[in-house]
């Protein structure tokens, strides 16, 4: 494994190196970096030209400039990267870091969201192949796929920002018409996914419709949009629900050892919910602290599963870790919800159409939660758009991959030996269907970074896309190279993960 990893790393570096030469060469030869000054009749233009020539080393051949740039970047191996300076002579490191932080946050969250959602929908459409649900989903995802970003952004700003904020300010209550409409839609859609006989669908529809209506009514009367909470009761019920549900899904409820493991994890989650509540009101170290807690959670879950799992250690570990992770997510969600009114008090219209953050939250009197809620609300629309656009890929790939796998001999064999449908789908089909998906994810991530160029402009983010476009127009290679190295590095990194994932997923790949 180590040798395989190193080999992959080596080829990664080589690819980046060659790509950097090519990009540098192309950028440098894409135009005249002094064009604007040449056309200027400013008496100081010659001086400004000299300055620019000095900053950009235009008096050197391109390979000398490349070498100068490469030396700075090679410093990364000594942990002191130097991405050079732009044409004004400004140090690029802080500029690039700021831009990369904003852009990667956007792309990362959007990618994760579309992978999870896309795979889920893909599996469902594969299971219900050629059903109304399948056709409708295909229609919708292709519609999203073909939306031009700028147009989708304008629509999204209207509906998700302007109308939503108006609604929030008017008391955040559903009218009876809206309530009926939403429950009606739920009552139609859910039975389509669930399938079954006509009678069963009718019953499912009725139950779902009534449930939705009740939930919305509760939502209104509790002013949930203004004062949302999962609440202690919610955390307890949902954690245990997760424990039982995940056990049923992965191991089956008859597997008592797994069930008890999962329930133990759920109980521990609830204990830690109370134990860490005050500590988390102002998490020391922010995301690092939360990350550390998250890792600790996983470790504890693994330990519990290994000790309690008995013969079903493997399944117990999966169930325990998933239960732990999802319960932690619930707790995190509850904390965010708890602070939602605090954020709303400073930002009465929570969804903004511009900026990566809101200035008010850079002042000293705000909490860590308010700052991050602001970041999340600012992220919301661009993330949704990016997500919807890439959803189609994941959905369709998952679907076709699942269908492909479902025709394989080993699936038939699994059914023949009497494995339950759950085991067949999740263990035999899904796992194998994931293999081609791993490749897509890696490529898609890099592609999405490019796709943010337009979004950043529309949402006035000062991200990598802006940086790249401006630099390219100015024939300024250093920022272009910075963009290329960071995006390229991330893309290659994801490819690398994908390769590792192959090895894990596909037992035929022996490394």
């Amino acid at each position, binding site marked *: 494994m180590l040798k395989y990893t190193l080999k992959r790393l080596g080829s990664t570096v080589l690819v980046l190196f060659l790509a950097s030469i090519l990009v540098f060469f192309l950028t440098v030869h894409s135009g005249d970096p002094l064009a604007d000054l040449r056309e*200027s009749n400013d008496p100081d233009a010659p*001086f400004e030209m000299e300055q620019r020539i000095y900053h950009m080393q235009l008096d050197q051949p391109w390979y000398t400039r490349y070498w100068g740039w490469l030396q700075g970047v090679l410093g990364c191996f000594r942990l002191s990267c130097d991405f050079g300076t732009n044409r004004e002579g400004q140090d690029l490191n*802080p500029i690039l870091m700021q831009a990369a932080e904003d852009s990667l946050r956007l792309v990362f969250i959007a990618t994760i969201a579309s992978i999870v959602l896309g795979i889920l929908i893909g599996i469902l459409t594969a299971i219900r192949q050629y059903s109304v649900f399948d056709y409708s989903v295909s229609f919708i995802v292709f519609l999203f796929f073909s939306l031009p970003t700028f147009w989708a952004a304008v629509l999204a700003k209207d509906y998700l920002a302007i109308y939503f904020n108006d609604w929030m300010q008017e008391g955040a209550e559903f009218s009876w018409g809206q309530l009926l409409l939403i429950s009606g839609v739920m009552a139609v859609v859910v039975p389509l996914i669930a399938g079954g006989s006509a009678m069963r669908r009718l019953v499912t529809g009725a139950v779902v419709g009534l449930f939705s209506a009740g939930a919305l009514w509760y939502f209104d009367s509790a002013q949930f949009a203004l004062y949302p909470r999962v609440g202690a009761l919610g955390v307890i019920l949902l954690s245990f629900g997760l424990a039982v549900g995940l056990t049923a899904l992965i191991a089956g409820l008859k597997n008592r050892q797994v069930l008890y493991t999962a329930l133990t994890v759920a109980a521990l989650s609830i204990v830690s919910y109370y134990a860490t509540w005050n500590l988390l009101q102002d998490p020391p170290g922010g995301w690092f602290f939360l990350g550390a807690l998250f890792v600790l959670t996983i470790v504890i879950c693994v330990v519990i599963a290994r000790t309690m799992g008995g013969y079903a250690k493997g399944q117990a570990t999966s169930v325990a870790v998933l239960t732990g992770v999802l319960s932690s997510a619930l707790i995190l969600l509850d904390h965010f919800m708890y602070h939602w009114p605090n954020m709303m008090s400073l930002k009465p219209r929570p969804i903004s159409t*511009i900026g990566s953050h809101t*200035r008010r939250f850079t002042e000293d009197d705000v909490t860590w939660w308010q700052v991050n809620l602001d970041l999340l609300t600012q992220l919301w629309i661009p993330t949704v758009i990016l997500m919807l656009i890439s959803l189609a890929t994941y959905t369709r790939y998952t679907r076709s991959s699942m269908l492909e796998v479902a025709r394989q001999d080993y699936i038939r064999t699994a059914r023949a030996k009497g494995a339950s449908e759950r085991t067949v789908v999740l263990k035999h089909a899904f796992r194998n269907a994931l293999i081609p998906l791993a490749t897509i994810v890696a490529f898609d991530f890099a592609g999405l970074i490019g796709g943010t160029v337009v979004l950043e402009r529309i949402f006035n983010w000062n991200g990598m896309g802006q940086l790249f476009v401006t630099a390219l127009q100015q024939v300024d290679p250093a920022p272009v190279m910075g963009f290329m190295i960071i995006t390229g590095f991330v893309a290659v990194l994801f490819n690398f993960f994908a390769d590792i994932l192959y090895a894990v997923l596909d037992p035929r790949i022996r490394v």
Partner: protein
Amino acid sequence: MSHLMNRAAVIWVPPLYRFCAVHHRSLSTYSHEEQEVKLRKLSAAAAILASSALVLSGCTPGDDDDNGNGDDVTDENGETTDEGGEEDGDEGEASGEREALDLETTDDEIHVSVADVDFVSYNGNARTANNTTNSAIVGLMGSSFWYFGTDLSINPFDEFGSYEVIDEGEAVYEEDEDGETVLDEETGEPVINEDESSPMVVEYTISDDAVWSDGTDITVADFVLTWGTQAPGISNPDFDEEAAEEDPDYDESPHLFDSVSKSFGEYVPDGPQGDLDGKTFTVEYSDHYVYVDWQLVVGGPQPSHIVAEQGGLSVEELAEAFYEKDGGALEEAAEFWNTGWHVQGGDLPDADLLPSSGPYVLDSYATGEYLSLVANEDYWGTPAGTERVTFHFLDDGIMTQALENADVDVIAPQATVDTLEQLEASNRDIEIYEQELATWEHLDLNHGSESPFSDHEVREAFALCVPRQLIIDNLIAPLSDDIELLNAREVFNYQDHYDEVVSESYDGRYDEQDIERARELLDEAGHDTVEIEIGYQAPNPRRSDQVQLISEQCSEAGFEISDGGHDAFFAEVIPTGDWDVALFAWAGSGQIASGRNLYHSEGGQNDGNWSNEDLDAAWDELVVTMDEEDRIPLIQEIERILWDDLMSIPLFVHPGTFAADASIDNVRTTAAQTGITWNADQWQRSAE
């Protein structure tokens, strides 16, 4: 490259400086050192910015339609006068002066966006900081002896101080044997008889209460700094002229201070005279003796204590070095002045270096996104209306939705039909302001011998067939109902003296088309058909449409018109003289003398080979006529000749569109280049 464009250009500048770049933001940004300082009420620094913004627009023929180019927006700072139908209904605004409001600062934040251009520098006088957003921001961080009213009037700002002319001076021109004014061969300016002339002297008094936000008194030394950075004599001691000429790689700048304006230094060679730490100084116009736009010369202060400290000098030493023109002593100070106030690596400079003399101080900044100002606690004048004003750097395309979502409260988008429709469709309670700007569209006719318009009858025929009213009806009316035919060049429809000037200079003969008469005139001139090309800076859809309309109408009279849109029209076509008609807009600045440069036969921006002795004489007299009433007959004379000789055909002033949340009080548009934020310190959100 292109001269032209700069309507704001001061007349008496060396030809070298007389150019204005056109089609490109960075270009136009750089081009005008000669820009007279047309300050507005606030800000020393901003002063100059303002001037250059002018230039921008002057230089930016694309103004309204050319979306690719951020500066268009920049210029659309409009104003309404009596006609502004959508105006808040505030009474008494016709004067164009600031309303005297007694405000208390409310703890609130108002968000505004004027253009998608980032903040560059606290030093608004620095050439690189010359953009709309920067000017608007710097404008709120400074105050000055005067400001531009909404009708381009220049009004003293008595909170800052006062000024009075203590010697009116007199300029006597040299005359030759025939009694003709002698012009300098190099500059084309009248030669002044130094024995008989006496210079104008103005005394300025800074308010006793005026202090920088760091507590330091604002004194004469601060004006010595403002003057010194513009003084032409202060050169870079390391600059070697010979070496620069011989060696193309020579890399020293001839100037020590990279100032966007040089006028204070040029008109007032000896600088402000007064006690350095006192509050009173005089300036003597010893170079040109009198200067009709003198009010524009002295604006606001720059903090000499900061520059001195950063330059390793005392304030006295700094002033001394400026007076002595001792470039060597000023090198460090110049280095700081040129770059030390710039945003570096995404961060504002240290707050101690950025004192304010206006209602606001800089607070926080996020590259490419916003800059926030907070009220200056030490401001001695009327306090700011709102604790915080935040500028967002938004593209025009996203301004309207941001306004609808209340992400911003005040916007200055480009005036397009789309924008207007979006604003009108908004669910939010917003106020739309339509404003006639100081930017005006016109057709220039080339009188050069190679052009068919060297023949007066052809000019007249063309003027008779141009569908002036139709252009307004089809292309401008959808944007604003208020825009009427513009029948003058030196005054605009919304200004006080417009009717007075037009009634004496123009009889309405080209208001209506007369194609038959045009045809007859061409026949009389012996032309069957006349081929002409109407040139403009492309791409610009609205100008293409105008050419289309003119072409359709004039073809009936016998003109064969081709579309001469060119993407470097001002840079490459105009200078060659190989053009017939140029369609573009000047950005007016409220400056009186600038027109001489365009219409005088020796004017530096006279590209149409226009020549009329009476016109020259009228201009030479106008630029030394200090009394406003006395100038009117001269302007009438000028306009009359311009109509008779048909040098240019004015079309319309550009409409500007602004919008604000209806809850924001005291938003007031202006025709001046200072833009919608000119009185942002008076904005307040009304309590609901």
